[in-house]
């Protein structure tokens, strides 16, 4: 079987690992199975992925939809840009008009929240996403719209939404690839709502790009991703933290202020019901009648205020139980439940219990049964709609309580309830938090694997590969890691185990605040800021550590030394503030002044921001980014992993720390002409078992000597490396790491031979290769491409 593949415009040459990557991807698509692929950062993973899948989509008449998930909005936007560029190229290359038209009719969009897409002059000014959502709903829900259209001027409507409604569904925007910025601009130009535009276009497009949550979080997936067809190709890019996203989407925290707010909301609901009873009692009557009949209320998903937090298959397809059908009964029910939770919060010792024991206790005290509890979220949704409440963001705490109730009553296994009365062990003022924590990432992702025939999990740092199928409970058909072929070592990983004074350095809890360690960490930063040009990024294992060490360095005069050579920027708690710091950091790098960016592994900056070229000539990882092992939630999760999947605690912790460390240092490289230093500063990195958990493409370049250095030795090695790498490479990677078409054909011939030998019964893969003399001219002739057999 062959596939007319059009390479990406930039990939007039394709890298060797890109080719292998595409072959394996193709294998997965043909076999309609799942796969795990690790491809080094900055080798054009996204491009390879998109160009193969788009070729596949365009070649087959079935047009399987591509659902491409990424972690962060910047990455979504980047992927959209890549796709746009790819399609431009394909249009350029298509030979017949028919083909060109096919390429032109290709749709690709990105989906994100109202907050990011709103252009309503007032609503978009709101700072909080939740408020934007609520205010938008007030202007756009179907009840308001009907009222407004019947009687113009009676209620406020959103003009942008109204204008969109006048357009023909499925044809809201001309075909093409629309990045988020493009959609916003289109919305502004044509005065239509970009958010609803992308939401309503979803069923009609070929590629959807959005974040993990839109597929994994049942609350969102229910609204957004329900109608996606089963044969869609799902890709999770940058999926190294996918297990965490899965767990997060089913976990909920309740605090005392939230319960107070929920209690107020319950009162408000009661008042509203009383009011409605007087004015429009028939409404409640209608609702009751519908609930008796077990009818799902017909309403568009766009209106949904709170959707069910549990997974589709766990939803009960039955009528809501009698004792909460009547609005006032349900309000009383909620009140009782909130009161119960409040009493639980008064306990001054830590409690950990299973959902079953919680339900038992609940029943003993309040006589609340499990079944009505399960319907809590659904019933609340129905009530809110009936009452036509506005500004529902004020009810968000109540929504959380309802979700909590539904989750706790639905799942027995893989969940744990933990009540922590104090924030820290030595705190004296209680600040209780009731955690409902999901321990098993497989629960949330299970429906995705079951529903979609092909799920691709890929990232630059996803080692060890077998961990993911184990944790997520699926069987991949392909599981592969690719090394990085380089004609010169464009990055230098170094492990610094001790300072120049031979004191061992480590972020181990016992020694991390030792002045000698802090000073030695500081001198690494000083020395590197002296010798490295442009940007340096430093990562710390946690916010707490970064904040304390920044203060300590300042008092020790270490930062004063750094100021002499570079500017200093630090990640702050606020995302927007950090973005601005990041922007200035990049300006300083561009300007040549050079800067240091201090940030946190697993933090905001470590995910999704590239520090390529001059934006990061060195990454310093201060310490091993272990999770906080005293955390009760983590402890519970480790226990669960051990019992359910036989993954040892230390194994998981080590794996988790190293994947994050690799993720941090991996951001320094983008492309093979880029170069950078990767400094691992902790003596624990020297241990072979730690390093073995790094992705192969990094690990293979750590030499034995570079795995145990003192600061001064590391500096010598770094200087040498920089002198070497700064020479004009004048290299030609062709044939070694970059493959031209001829090289690919050679490799294919070789593979084909092997395949033929091994499997005689395999479909006859030998396709007639056209005698065509035009190979050498660099352009890709379609026929020639058509003849390439990508099948192994």
């Amino acid at each position: 079987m062959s596939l007319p593949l059009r390479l990406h415009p930039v990939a007039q040459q394709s890298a060797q690992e890109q080719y292998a990557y595409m072959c394996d991807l193709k294998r997965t698509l043909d076999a309609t199975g799942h796969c795990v692929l690790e491809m080094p950062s900055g080798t054009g993973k996204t491009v390879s992925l998109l160009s193969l899948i788009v070729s596949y989509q365009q070649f087959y008449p079935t047009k399987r939809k591509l659902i491409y998930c990424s972690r962060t909005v910047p990455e979504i936007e980047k992927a959209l840009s890549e796709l746009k560029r790819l399609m431009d190229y394909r249009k350029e290359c298509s030979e017949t008009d028919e083909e060109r038209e096919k390429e032109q009719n290709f749709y690709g969009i990105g989906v994100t929240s109202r907050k990011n897409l709103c252009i309503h002059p007032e609503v978009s000014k709101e700072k909080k996403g939740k408020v934007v959502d609520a205010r938008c709903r007030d202007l756009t829900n179907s009840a308001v719209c009907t009222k407004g259209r019947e009687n113009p001027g009676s209620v406020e409507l959103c003009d942008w939404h109204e204008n969109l409604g006048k357009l023909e569904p499925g044809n809201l925007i001309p075909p093409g690839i629309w990045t988020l910025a493009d959609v916003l601009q289109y919305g502004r130009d044509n005065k239509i709502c970009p958010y609803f535009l992308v939401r309503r276009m979803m069923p009609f497009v070929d590629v959807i790009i959005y974040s993990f949550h839109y597929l994994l979080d049942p609350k969102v997936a229910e609204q957004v991703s329900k109608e996606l067809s089963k044969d869609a190709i799902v890709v999770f890019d940058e999926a190294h933290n996918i297990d965490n996203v899965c767990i997060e989407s089913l976990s909920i925290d309740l605090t005392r202020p939230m319960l107070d707010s929920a209690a107020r909301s319950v009162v408000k609901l009661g008042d509203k019901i009383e009011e409605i009873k007087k004015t429009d009692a028939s409404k409640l009557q209608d609702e009751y009648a519908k609930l008796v009949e077990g009818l799902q209320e017909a309403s568009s998903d766009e209106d949904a205020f709170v959707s069910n937090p549990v997974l589709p298959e766990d939803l009960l397809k039955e009528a809501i139980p009698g004792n909460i059908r009547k609005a006032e009964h349900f309000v009383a029910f909620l009140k009782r439940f909130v009161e119960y939770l409040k009493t639980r919060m008064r306990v001054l010792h830590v409690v950990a219990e299973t959902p079953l024991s919680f339900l038992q206790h609940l029943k003993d005290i309040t006589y609340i049964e499990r079944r009505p509890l399960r319907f809590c979220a659904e019933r609340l949704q129905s009530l809110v709609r009936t009452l036509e409440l506005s500004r529902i963001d004020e009810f968000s705490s109540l929504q959380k309580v309802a979700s909590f109730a539904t989750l706790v009553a639905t799942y027995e296994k893989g969940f744990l309830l933990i009540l922590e009365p104090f924030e820290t062990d030595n705190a004296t003022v209680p600040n209780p938090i009731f955690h409902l924590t999901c321990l098993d990432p497989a629960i949330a992702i299970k429906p995705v694997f079951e529903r979609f025939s092909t799920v691709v999990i890929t990232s630059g740092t996803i080692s060890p590969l077998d961990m993911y199928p184990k944790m997520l409970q699926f069987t991949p058909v392909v599981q592969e890691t690719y090394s990085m072929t380089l004609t010169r070592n464009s990055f230098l990983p170094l492990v610094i185990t001790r300072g120049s004074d031979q004191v061992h350095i480590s972020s181990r809890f016992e020694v991390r605040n030792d002045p000698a360690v802090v000073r030695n960490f500081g001198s690494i930063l000083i020395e590197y800021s002296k010798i490295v040009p442009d940007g340096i990024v430093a990562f710390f294992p946690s916010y707490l550590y970064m904040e304390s060490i920044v203060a300590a360095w300042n008092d020790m005069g270490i930062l004063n030394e750094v100021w002499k050579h570079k500017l200093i920027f630090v990640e702050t708690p606020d995302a927007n503030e950090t973005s601005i710091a990041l922007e200035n950091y990049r300006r300083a790098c561009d300007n040549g002044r050079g800067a240091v960016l201090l940030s946190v592994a697993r933090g905001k900056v470590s995910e999704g921001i590239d520090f390529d070229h001059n934006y990061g000539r060195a990454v310093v990882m201060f310490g091993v980014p272990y999770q906080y092992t005293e955390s009760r939630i983590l402890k519970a999760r480790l226990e669960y992993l051990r019992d359910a999947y036989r993954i040892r605690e230390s194994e998981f912790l080590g794996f988790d720390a190293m994947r994050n460390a690799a993720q941090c240092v991996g951001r320094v490289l983008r492309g093979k002409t880029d170069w950078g230093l990767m400094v691992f500063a902790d003596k624990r990195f020297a241990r072979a078992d730690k390093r073995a958990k790094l992705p192969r493409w990094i690990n293979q370049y750590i030499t034995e000597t570079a795995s145990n250095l003192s600061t001064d030795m590391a500096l010598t090695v770094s200087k040498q490396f920089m002198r070497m790498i700064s020479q004009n490479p004048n290299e030609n990677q062709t044939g070694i790491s970059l493959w031209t078409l001829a090289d690919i054909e050679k490799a294919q011939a070789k593979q084909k031979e092997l395949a033929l030998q091994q499997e005689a019964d395999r479909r006859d893969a030998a396709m007639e290769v056209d005698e065509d003399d035009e190979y050498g001219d660099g352009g890709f002739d379609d026929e020639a491409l058509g003849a390439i057999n990508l099948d192994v």
Partner: protein
Amino acid sequence: MPSLVCSAQASYKKLPGLLELTDSHLQWTRTGDNAPVVKFPYSEAASLSRSKVGAEQVRLKIGLVSNEAGHNFTFTSPQAVALAERDKFEAELTGIIARNRAPPVPGPTTAATTPKARLAGTPVPGANGSAAATPLRPPPPLARPSQSRAQSVASDSRASGTPLSDHPTNDFRLRKKVLLSTPELAQLHRELVMGGHITENEFWEGREHLLLAQAAAESQKRGKPGQLVDPRPQAVDGDVKIVITPQLVHDIFEEFPIVAKAYSDNVPEKLSEAEFWSRYFQSKLFNAHRASIRSSAVQHVVKDDPIFDKYLEKDDDELEPRKLREERVDTFIDLGATFVDHEETGNEKDVTMQAGKQRAVLPLIRKFNEHSTRLLDTALGGPSVKRRRLDTDDERYAQIDLEDLHDDESSAGIILDMQNRQRYFDGRANGTGQPGSDEPRVDFREAMQQAKVSTLGWSANLAQLKIEKKAGDSALISMTQNVQSRLDVKQRKHDIPEALFRQMTTCQTAANEFLRQFWLAIYPPANESQQLSVATPAQKAAKASKMIGYLKKTHEKVDALVVEAQREQVDPARVRVAMKPILDAVDKALGFWQTKNVKTPGAR
């Protein structure tokens, strides 16, 4: 003679002399000398420091713009007189330095004048209404603002032949700097120019790039130092004090505009200069400005101050910053967008991963970010322009581009710049266009055939191939010898006496220089604009013959060295071998000169 502002007996580098401040320069003359040894214009003065009050020696140190180490003067008059003299100098220089530092923008910087400068009665920059203090300054040698380096250099050299030679003194200064920074060149210079063999200008001919590089390096404006303004108390005379220097005052005003505001509000109406500062350093405001988290600990020992507390702002230690720029950053780095992309889910992060848990650090972190941004803005001339939307896809593509995947061929070579290129190609085209052109057309098929035939039976041929033994052996032997001799050289000690060796080096470099001059005179100038002075052909010829005269002596010199070597009991052959290449080169030049003169006897 410029008028003298003040003067004092002072020693410099332990030599007694007279320190004088004229209306444009600071100079120091050694006792007995006529010309000053140290002399620099006002505009060079960058910083000032002095010995402590009670110190035995009364010293004054002046840092220069070009030389941070600066000069150290010790006042040698009796202590009381010395102190008075020093104070006078200090007062004057403080004013000068303040002017040098003053940013060219008048207005708010008025407040930035130092209290001391004002006390000393020096004119206040900005206050006199003129645009900064520039008119007071003598025109600085390199201050050519608003002119790009390339432009200024090019126009200069074209106009007068030497870079920057509109200031001959400046040119001289540059040469001196270059010589100082490269000892080898200085050695050669001493040898040839001071020895009278060639003139100064000849020496620099062909070395303009060094001067240009030096000029460029100097004209680069030094950026602001990055350190935070964080005055820390020092122990002076047993008391803990913060020493206020004019520079510090300036920095404080720039870093904390609120202090500048307080200053202009209160001085001198409500508070005197001294009072202002002493109260400021004891106020909560100062503690809020200090770059340390310990400052919050001292908060409660600090007294209330009705004047300064007015200016106090709340600590910026909330999770969200107090003021945030409104516009969004580029989507590719917009972290906030991810934050609101979906509702928050999951359990709270553990204690260590909650950002901003140590609230006391937040103001510090924000201060770092602000300080860096401010430095950047001053360097780039203003805050970042409001980021326009990345309209063109190209800009976005540039960010996602992977350079290494570009086709090699896409890198265009350097286009040959040829006169009448069009005609050249036309001519060629016409030539080949003609039927029956002289180029034989190759029949590829036939050629292929021939090639095939010629390779027939290659294996047999290969088997018959015999390498002649003798040649192979000799090749091997010569290689072995080569390796051996190299090893020999490597192992042999460097045993030529130091003095002789130095002579040899000198002889060699000198001959080299003569050769360079010679060929320079022979060949046409590489680039007009690069030329120091465009010499007439006659001049060139004269120069060449002069150089030949020198070069002819090279043999004698080498012979002398050989004799010397014999006396030193060094194998003279080694000296000969060492000097062989240079002699060869000299002979070549001599030979060239001879044939040239024979060919064109009329030229002489």
